[in-house]
């Protein structure tokens, strides 16, 4: 089953490589990875998705918790949560018909065209991983030049928070 593990960790050099290294060292796979600083400059938030049975996920979370740089973590897939992936996709768009078709599909998916060239469009789209996948399928008639995705970022719904001091 796919899991979304969200980690609060020290914003220290080397911290990210410890997390990523753990996965390759122990033969776990990372499907997506997203990492950025938080409102507290000393902490970063890392969200990763991985596949595994319960036993593997239990080991993964325990091993992650054991890393000295990891402050706290949560398996978001255990409860209600919001997850978002962001995609930038550059497609070939030449001539009125093709350009209209790209615009139409983008509108249906509530995407935005963020850059326009004489023969290309760059579209930005945000949503769950599945939504982005379907968009790529929908665009498969077009010539896709580049796909860039942020990887999933997630947060629990409601009062539950992942932060240094639990309120």
């Amino acid at each position: 089953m796919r899991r979304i593990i969200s980690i609060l960790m020290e914003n220290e050099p080397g911290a990210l490589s410890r997390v990523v290294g753990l996965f390759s060292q122990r033969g776990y796979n990372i499907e997506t990875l997203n990492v950025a600083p938080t409102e507290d400059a000393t902490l970063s938030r890392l969200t990763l998705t991985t596949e595994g049975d319960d036993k593997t996920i239990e080991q993964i979370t325990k091993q992650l918790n054991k890393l000295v740089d990891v402050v706290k973590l949560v398996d978001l897939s255990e409860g209600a949560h919001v997850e978002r992936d962001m995609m930038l996709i550059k497609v070939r768009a030449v001539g009125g018909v093709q350009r209209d078709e790209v615009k139409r599909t983008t509108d249906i998916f509530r995407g935005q065209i963020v850059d326009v060239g004489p023969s290309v469009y760059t579209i930005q789209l945000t949503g769950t991983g599945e939504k982005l996948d379907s968009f790529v399928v929908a665009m498969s008639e077009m010539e896709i030049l580049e796909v860039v995705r942020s990887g999933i970022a997630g947060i629990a719904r409601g009062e539950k928070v992942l932060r240094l001091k639990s309120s």
Partner: protein
Amino acid sequence: MEMLSGGEMIARALEDEGVEYIFGYPGGAVLHIYDALFKSSKVPHVLVRHEQAATHAADGYARATGKPGVVLVTSGPGATNAVTGIATAYMDSIPMVVLSGQVASHLIGEDAFQETDMVGISRPIVKHSFMVRNPEDIPATIKKAFYLATSGRPGPVVIDIPKDATRPDLKFEYHYPESVKIRSYSPAQRGHSGQIKKAARLLLSAKRPMIYAGGGVVQGEGSALLTELAQKLNYPVTNTLMGLGAYPGTDRQFLGMLGMHGLYEANMAMHHSDVILAVGARFDDRVTNTVSKFCPGAKIIHIDIDPTSISKTVGADIPIVGPVQSVLSDLMEQVALLQKKDPQLPDAAALQKWWQQIDEWRDKHGLWTGRRYGESDSIMPQQVIESLYRVTQGDAYVTSDVGQHQMFAAQYYRFDQPRRWINSGGLGTMGFGLPAAIGAKLAFPDKDVACVTGEGSIQMNIQELSTCTQYKTPVKIINLRNNYLGMVKQWQDMQYEGRYAMSTYEDSLPDFVKLMEAYGHVGIQVTKLSELDAKMEEAFAMKDKLVFLDIFIDRMEHVYPMHIAPNGSMKDMWLSKNERT
């Protein structure tokens, strides 16, 4: 406040930390540190002959004393040479702090002379690592390193120090913190009381109990409590290779080591048990044999300081995360409470039957039964360890290398105390024995320290004979000489129809007696059983001399019992070349 340079702060911080020995080797990136040590430090430094030996010696010191081992190496090749020793310590959870030099900050990333990414290389084999960015952080970083190395599940910590951080001309205020807090690190202090209550109930309901204790009991100083608990309940105990000495080896309740080369009775009792109390052990593949067939009828209570050790391979029915001492004392309290309520616990009749069964196993297949493949006066390896045991009265610190000799030592030297048996269990590092013996001997100069080795292993760090000369560490080297990489040969006998691919070197071995003389030590050859005891005594009588006993043993002997793999269970063992369970 005192103003010190980065190098001086390192020297002082090690002193303030109470470090007794630094094991190391100098080079360009650490020369400021060496100069600071030279000028001011009260901490003696042991100059090894290869950085691998520095880590093993620090490791041997740590295992013998329970205190962290300290290593100082230069950048590049100094650091990479230390890697095997760091991995060895990591696998066996040994507290160690390794200070490695690094090229100056402005050169990092430029493939500078002797630059290597030590933090990167060591990442999978350390508990944690630091790169010093600001010299003023040195004292706090060192404090944190010692705290991490020694608390929770111990392990090696690397501090990588760019040369410019140790410059003698830049001075900083020195203050060594009393204690440190790391907000993202809080090892368990107590076990969960509800779990401990459940564990006490299960433990007392056992009809065929087993206590399976590992290196965590030694590391966590839990031996006395474990022994008390086992003896109160009259439950049988087995120790892992890492746990030997955690329970007295000569006690009736001790069934010996378990696992691949574990004793028949230990493996049989594990397999047939109904409740296993696992303490500070990690159900390693060399213990369990095929995991899916592991102890089918047993409910498992697993106590460990590290949650990742629990249910990693074998699932625990009652997991308890906590330090072995506090959990065992809480457990004993709960056991006593339950027994007060119900004095019939545990079931005495069942226990008596269980002991009868165990005694039957014991009688059926004790250890070595006198088989012999060579001449009648040829020396069997087991007899060497028995002789060593007699002559040292079971009171030596015994280090070992890796191979058949290691298993014979583990099986036949009955360790009554923790920390006396010093071997690389997890990584299985040949070359560990001699430097580890140096560390143990420096820690306990008045004790006998023996390194049980093979002619293969000893050559992996034989250069340390020179260190022994320099620091006058008169260890005794017990070389079980079979002229083979014996353990490799054993596998080739058993699985490759005796094709000895690269496991022989008979014609090219050095004359060890002459070699010892060249270093200023004593070498004695032993070829006959009739002279074994006398020569062993002679060696240990030379208190101030390193003596190398080159003991020619039966070349064809194998280590038994041996688990049958793949697909075997705990109870499936070869008992000799042609006998199996």
